[in-house]
């Protein structure tokens, strides 16, 4: 088994000194001048430590110095070190090059430590071609490709590597949080893409709980629930995500994974709609007296239903659709991964946020819902 290991040593460096992220050279410089220290390597080390037991069974491939080599050697691995650092200070290009090279070498799993930006770099390089596990080293991470803690990331990797092919893979979100906007307290969070991650929650339980449905089966079950209730003369706005994609796939319709589509009478009536497109769709439906419903899923690892990755569904759109016409779908494992934290909405409009809070019946499979709290 070949395992790639990439560390973005600068991940999270801006957070500790109140800079809300670490993307961009000037921010990194500013963080250092404010006395920030690199915490990412220690976190990455904590994850890699968990693989010591498999030291002789895996071939570790890593990038020089602070991007993985140092930690690997300190722990007693004998890694194959590839690539070359252009500069003392690492950049996103290093991450991308490392991920691309490792993918080309045929690694079975890529472990990377970083934050949302790092996940985007890895995604740019390898898409969803090979399984990855993110070691959380950023401050607040929205991308669901990351494990809860560095140790969990290591445990997940260990399970994956010793699981002899029984591991289910699921797709997890990579989020694009625009840090510049975020620093100015403006919100710009885009759903950037998906990467493949091992479905560890299921894996840990399988031995005792018997057969647990795969993520895919659960999504199909959710789609069945939605389709069984589909009304002919209602317009459905379908939010982004793999769970909502399953509905479109089951209906045999094309869909926009990262965007918003609309259907009516099981036919596609709008593709990759932006806010303006949605508002004019609502006008059109209103004129015809056709009610509109919105079907969305939880995006990313922080539990956002609105405001991260589906900004097209703006407060203006949601106000017109109304709370009673919003349907939330999510797999049980995704809901449980929130560890009891509420679902979140952040539409940028306090009144609409308020309207959306309360309790929702989140559809978790055919004829099964979870009563869950929504906060803002």
């Amino acid at each position, binding site marked *: 088994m070949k395992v790639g290991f990439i560390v973005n040593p600068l991940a999270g460096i801006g957070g500790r000194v109140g800079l809300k992220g670490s993307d961009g050279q000037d921010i990194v410089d500013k963080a250092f001048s404010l006395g920030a220290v690199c915490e990412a390597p220690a976190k990455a080390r904590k994850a890699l430590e968990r693989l010591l037991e498999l030291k002789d069974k895996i071939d570790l491939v890593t990038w020089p110095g602070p991007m993985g080599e140092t930690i690997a050697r300190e722990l007693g691995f004998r890694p194959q070190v590839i690539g070359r650092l252009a500069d003392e200070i690492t950049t996103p290009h290093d991450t991308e090059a490392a991920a691309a090279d490792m993918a080309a070498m045929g690694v079975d799993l890529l472990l990377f430590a970083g934050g949302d930006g790092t996940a985007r770099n890895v995604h740019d390089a390898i898409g969803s071609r090979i399984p990855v596990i993110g070691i959380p080293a950023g401050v607040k991470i929205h991308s669901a490709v990351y494990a809860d803690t560095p140790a969990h990331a290591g445990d997940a990797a260990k399970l994956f590597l010793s*699981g002899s092919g029984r591991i289910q893979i699921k797709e997890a979100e990579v989020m694009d949080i625009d840090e510049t906007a975020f620093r100015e307290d403006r919100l710009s969070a885009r759903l950037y893409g998906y990467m493949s991650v091992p479905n560890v929650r299921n894996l*840990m339980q399988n031995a005792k709980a018997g057969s647990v449905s795969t993520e895919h089966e659960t999504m199909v079950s959710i789609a069945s629930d939605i389709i069984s209730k589909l009304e002919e003369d209602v317009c459905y706005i379908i939010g982004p995500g793999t769970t909502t994609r399953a509905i479109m796939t089951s209906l045999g319709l094309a869909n926009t994974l990262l965007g918003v589509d609309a259907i009516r009478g099981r036919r596609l009536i709008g593709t990759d709609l932006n806010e303006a497109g949605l508002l004019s769709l609502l006008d059109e439906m209103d004129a015809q007296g056709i009610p509109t419903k919105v079907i969305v899923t939880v995006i990313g690892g922080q539990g956002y239903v609105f405001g991260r990755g589906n900004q097209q569904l703006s407060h203006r759109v949601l106000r017109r659709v109304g709370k009673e016409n919003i349907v939330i779908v999510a797999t049980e494992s995704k809901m449980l991964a929130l560890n009891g934290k509420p679902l979140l909405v952040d539409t940028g409009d306090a009144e609409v946020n308020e309207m959306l809070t309360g309790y929702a019946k989140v559809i978790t499979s055919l004829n*099964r819902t979870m009563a869950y709290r929504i906060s803002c």
Partner: protein
Amino acid sequence: MKDVKLRKFHAASWDEPLIMELGRKGERGIIPPTPAKKVCEDIGPAKELVPSGMWRQEDIDLPELAQYHVLQHYLRLSQETMGMDLGADIGEGTCTMKYSPKMHEQIVNSTKMTDLHPLQPDDTLQGILEIVYGLEQYLKQISGMSKFTFQPGGGSHATYTNACLLRKYHESRGELAQRDEVITTIFSHPCDGATPATAGFKVITLMPDENGYPDLEALKAIVSERTAGIMFTNPEDTGIFNPKVAEYVKVVHDAGGLCFYDQANANGIMGIARAFDAGFDACHFNLHKTFSSPHGCEGPAAGAYGVREELARFLPVPTVEFDGSKYFLDYDRPDSIGKVRSFMGNLECIVRAYAWIRSMGAEGLKTVAKISVLNNNYLDMLLLRIKGVSRPYAEGKRRLEQARYSLEQLKEDTGVGTLDIKNRLSDFGVQGYWLSHHPWIVPEPFTPEPCETYSKADMDYWAAAMKQSIEEAYEDPSFSINAPYGQAIGKIVDDSLIEDPERWACTYRAFKRKHKKD
């Protein structure tokens, strides 16, 4: 706990083949004598005694073994398992593994029981009917309900019976089409969601609030004219007793639904709190847990399902009635949901439960509840002193008869998880513990239940074995990960053996089909 000396245990290991692989053609256990000539003449050919449609067309594919080889085989297998009376089965929480008095086995194994046939006329079944009727009277008092059935063959079967009754009740009011939602909680037994789903309801699950109780505000937000009922436990799997349960009942009643109390684990409340008094419409007991029948792989189960007076007409047929002079089976119940199982249920469980209640007496039952709660809180104190063990939800609040703990910290610190500790624990001569129902909400869970059977010394031993197992993990994680060392079979390294359908089968015939292709 200081003076506990941990026992060295090692199971027998026989490397025993499957029985299907034993014996050889022509080997025989018993060779029956040829019948006397006169008998043959009187009866005629044996073949003619059996209707032709029941004759097997092909030879049966069974192993051929001498009787003593069969005995050897099963004795060896039994030696490779941790039988029910060998260790203090404190770990198997939610299962109430109490001691099952052996005298009760003599009763259920007597010919008075074993020679009964369920199709005998009622007037020849008076003894057993009196016991069934008598047990019903006791359970009515314990729960406050008005009528019981013992037909369900287990706890989940009883909750399924409740789901069927919910349908019948709403149908009788012309509301079945409208009332299609049943509410349960994530920490109730999964059957409280699964059985109404099987009965055609849509199921809504409540999550815990910050105190570990089912979220009452969520319940208020989701009840409606579509609510058929709620089915849940109290205490839930966490062991946290919800003192405000009557409020939940009121919310559901106000919405027009019925309330079912899953009392599979009644050991902590028996004789102390009654389902009826909290406003519930129905409840069930597991005779094989709270009322001492051996269970798990050690015996059959019985779900005793009881309802309020207004719902009694819907119970399965037959019910056992008494007209003042004799007991009889009543099939003439037009509103009944019908049968959920043949005949009257698993009678041996009913007889053991009856015997157990008679031997304990009313005060005895209350004492059971008190001791089981006391025991659990003693064990709780011992366990929470162990590094790496935590008990999520409702910090500082006492649990009733069981509690769900987490080894998340241990896992974080060492990489050793609850499955590893469970394996290692069995090396100390106690049964492995129960982890959690699905889904795992508490990470790295374990759920012990030291019911009234167990002495202080038993609990000290169990906690000491846990402490030792966990301390070992902190010292040398790889030692813990490779446990157990004293069992007939070591650690199952490749879990895919039990997860990959290509690699296992439910029967030998299916196994052969998959792997030997003959």
